[in-house]
Structures are given as structure tokens and as C-alpha cells.
């Protein structure tokens, strides 16, 4: 939901998704091409600054969205830093991996750069615009249909889960651990039926509007696409220069 809020309410909402995708792609390439951790961190910083200062995504919200990914990155870095030694003579031993710190710095900074690039894209571009972009890029129809339906269903089912949970809680469904387990089972069973029913309903609704195959929609239009893509490409070149030029 935080990503959704940002995607719809940022300063670059009306900028062509193609331009934003170009910039994000350059960011990912720059992060992986970075010659040093400092270069990768510079790329990450530039991308984060673009998201928060350029697109005006509130920094607090940015950090909250990034937090789970940063947590996983941190735990991965810890596991890379240390190595476990097993031997018959001694017990299990922890020690710093020989090249651990250097590897952590390299992998961690690159991952941060790639994460910043992806966050830039998803926090400035609604998924519906990204799907339209993928459609223009001739992504297979069946994948796009699944994306469209999954994205829509995400919100329909979150509402259904919320309603069912509320109804169960109102009748003390989660008063004790035993009841909670039972209610959770009921919720799962109920949702399974709802998935089936909703799928049937959507199929009927699609037929009612003359659909007999792939789900086709009108693509959104954006103004100044060429200018925006050119600017994004220029920004991307700066990112690449920062990643390769920094020693």
C-alpha cells in the first residue's frame, strides 16, 4: 500500500514509464558494473536522491518500504562475513571469512544500488503503467493477463480477508489460540471458495463485454515521451559514469 501511495502521488507520476524504466535499468547496470563499493554506494545514493528529492517521495515512506529489503540484505551480509568451521577435533567455530569484509562490501553495495533502482521504478510508477509498458514491449499476453488479474485480485482479496477477519473477531473467533487456529482454517476455506467464485464471476463479466480471448485494454498516453526518455538516458549515463569512473 505504501508503494501504491507513492506511485500515484509523486511528482513524476505523469512522466513516461518508459523513461523511468530506462533510468532504473541504467541504475541496475551501473550498480553491477561498479568498480568499487564506493562507486556502487554513489549510484545507490544518486538513485535514492532522485526518488526522494526529484520525485518527492517522502524519505520516511521510502525508508519504510526499503526496510524489509534492507533487513534481508543485512542478514545476508552477516552470513557472508562469517564462516562456520566444522572439525572432529574442535567444536563448531565461527570466524571471519578470509575475504569476508571485502566481499560483503562489494555484494552489499551493489545490492543496495540495485535495490535503489527498483525502488525508484516502483515508487514513481503505478503498476498499471508498467503493465502497459510491458504490453508495448510485446510481453506474452498470457503473462500480462495473469499480472493484471493478480494485481486486481490482490486488492479484492485483501478486502475479503479484512471483512472475514473482522466478522470472525466480532464473534470471538480469535479469543484463544485454539479458536484462532480454527478461525484461520475457516478463513482459508472461505477464501478458497471465494477465489473460485470470483474467477467464475470475472469470466462471466468478461463474456458479457464480448471477450473471447486475451484481455486487451487501451494503453495510457504520456506527453513528451521522447524528451523524457532522452533525459532519463542522460541521467542513466551519469549513473554509469559515476559507477565506472569512481576509483
Amino acid at each position, binding site marked *: 500500500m505504501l508503494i*501504491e501511495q507513492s506511485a*500515484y502521488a509523486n511528482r513524476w507520476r505523469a512522466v513516461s514509464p518508459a523513461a523511468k524504466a530506462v533510468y532504473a535499468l541504467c541504475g541496475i547496470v551501473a550498480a553491477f558494473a561498479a568498480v568499487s563499493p564506493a562507486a556502487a554506494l554513489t549510484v545507490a545514493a544518486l538513485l535514492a536522491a532522485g526518488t526522494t528529492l526529484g520525485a518527492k517521495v517522502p524519505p520516511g515512506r521510502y525508508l519504510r518500504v526499503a526496510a524489509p529489503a534492507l533487513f534481508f540484505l543485512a542478514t545476508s551480509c552477516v552470513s557472508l562475513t562469517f564462516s562456520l568451521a566444522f572439525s572432529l577435533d574442535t567444536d563448531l567455530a565461527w570466524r571471519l571469512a578470509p575475504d569476508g569484509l571485502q566481499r560483503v562490501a562489494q555484494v552489499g553495495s551493489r545490492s543496495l544500488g540495485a535495490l535503489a533502482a527498483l525502488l525508484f521504478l516502483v515508487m514513481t510508477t*503505478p*503498476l*498499471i503503467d508498467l*503493465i*502497459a509498458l510491458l504490453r508495448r514491449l510485446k510481453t506474452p499476453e498470457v503473462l500480462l493477463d495473469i499480472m*493484471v*488479474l493478480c*494485481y*486486481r485480485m490482490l*486488492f*479484492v482479496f485483501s*478486502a475479503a480477508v479484512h471483512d472475514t477477519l473482522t466478522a470472525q473477531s466480532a464473534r470471538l473467533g480469535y479469543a484463544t489460540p485454539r479458536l484462532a487456529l480454527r478461525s484461520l482454517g475457516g478463513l482459508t476455506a472461505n477464501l478458497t471458495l471465494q477465489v473460485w467464485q*470470483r474467477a467464475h*464471476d*470475472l469470466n*462471466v*463479466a*468478461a*463474456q*458479457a*463485454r*464480448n*471477450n*473471447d480471448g486475451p*484481455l*486487451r*485494454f*487501451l494503453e*495510457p498516453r504520456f506527453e513528451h515521451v521522447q524528451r523524457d526518455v532522452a533525459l532519463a538516458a542522460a541521467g542513466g549515463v551519469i549513473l554509469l559514469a559515476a559507477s565506472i569512473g569512481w576509483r
Partner: protein
Amino acid sequence: MTLLEFADVSFRYPDGSVGLNACSLAIARGSRNALVGANGSGKTTLFQHGNGLLRPQSGVVRYAGKTLDYNRGGLRELRSKVGLVFQNPDHQLFSASVQEDVSFGPINLGLDEATVRQRVTDALSAVGMLDCASKAVHNLSFGQKKRVCIAGVLAMEPELLILDEPMAGLDHAMRIELTAVLDGLQARGITLLLATHDIDFAYRWADQIHVMIAGRCSASLPCAELEEFEQRHNALSDAGLPLPSVLTLHRQLVAQGVLPNQASPRSHAELLDRLANKENH
């Protein structure tokens, strides 16, 4: 002239429940029609027959005098003329974007992009949702979703628009707005058929009220003569429906000599006007 006609249509669901039972009903071109009846009386089943989603097991459905053709081409033609708006907007809207969802029908008709864009703009304007064209569907209110559903069908430029309980779940202000949208559609020559449980709204808005009981259309009442018709046939009371409250009130006022025995008013506003005029005289 009859646009859509059901002649002795029967349909039974696979679980054995009766959907329609020898149901006969006619919808005149350019008219406003309200379908009333208890839950499970067959209203939605009837609508799905009108759009060709269900096929009668016996009886005939005719559109503009022709029996429906259930092959691919026939259904395509029918669904381009008969639009169906479902009761629950979440069952109908499957694209995440308003503009995309409204474009779904016209694109399925095989129209070119410029025409589709124009139709999407026109349809969203007709329901007052043009400002929300680029919004995500899940960020809309329930009433806005209903309007997007109507726009999605309007963009196919149907001759007959069928709405399954369009007022359900709407607050008073939204109902007034939706009524204005429906008035605008009828002014454009679109024939309207809707299901409702609100007999007062049906009487105020419709030209014809069709009463459904247990899968059968028990009566088609012209609203202008509803009171006399009901006195003779008891069609509403047989379906467990009351008389519109404005008729009951008017009858009482006539009985007490407050108002002269003239044609029945269609709304409380009309009744209040008559009372105000009487006081002025």
C-alpha cells in the same frame, strides 16, 4: 416497438434450483423498466438471458423481433447491443485502471484505437468520472466503482442497458447522482432495464414495472396507471411488495378531502407541490 422479448423462457440451474419458469416479458424500445421481486425470484437469471450469458432450456428470447442466435457471431452482435452492469462492481472490474477497464468492451468489439479513446472519454463523461480516468480502480469509492461499471458498458454504445440492482449499497446522494446519470442515458435514446427492491424509486422513475415471482414475470404494470392496475390485479401485494408510499399517502389525503381525486402523483415532491398549490389557492 418491442426491443427485448422473453417468451415462456424456462431455465433450471445444475443444482436443480429454478431460475426462470415460463417467464414472459417485453421491453419496449426507449422505455424505462424496473424489475421488482424478492431475492431469488429470477431477476439476475433473466438479465443473464438478455445478454446471452445463459441460454433458455425452453422458450425463446427475441431481440428486435429476431430469435437470439447463440453462435459466436450472434452473441457478439447481441452483446454489442445489450449491455449488462453487474450488481457487485468488484465482480465486473478486472483491470486495475479506470481507463483500461472502460476500454475493455470497445476493444473487444474490434474498434480502432482512436474510436476506442473517444468512446472511453464519452462514457466516462456521461457518468461524471472523466477526472478519475487514470486512477486505480481499488482507490475508488463503491459509488465511483458502480459508475465505472456503467461507463464500461456504455462505451460499447448499447441500445439496451441492463443494470442489476444499481442502487444497492449507495447512499442517498449517490442514488440521486446515479438517477441523474440514468436520466441522461435515457435522453440519449438508450432503453433501460434495472432491478430494484425500492418500489418507491421504481414507481417514481420507471415507465413500466415488471413483477417477478418464483422465476415468472407475474405482471407488467404501467406506472402511470399503477394504482388502478393494482386494485384489479394485486400484482404487487402477491409479490410481497407494498404500494409506493406516495400512493398510499395520496389515497389517504383524497379520502380525507385534503386533495381532489386526480391522477396519482409519481413522487413525494409532486405531492408536496400539489399541497402547496392547494394552500395558495
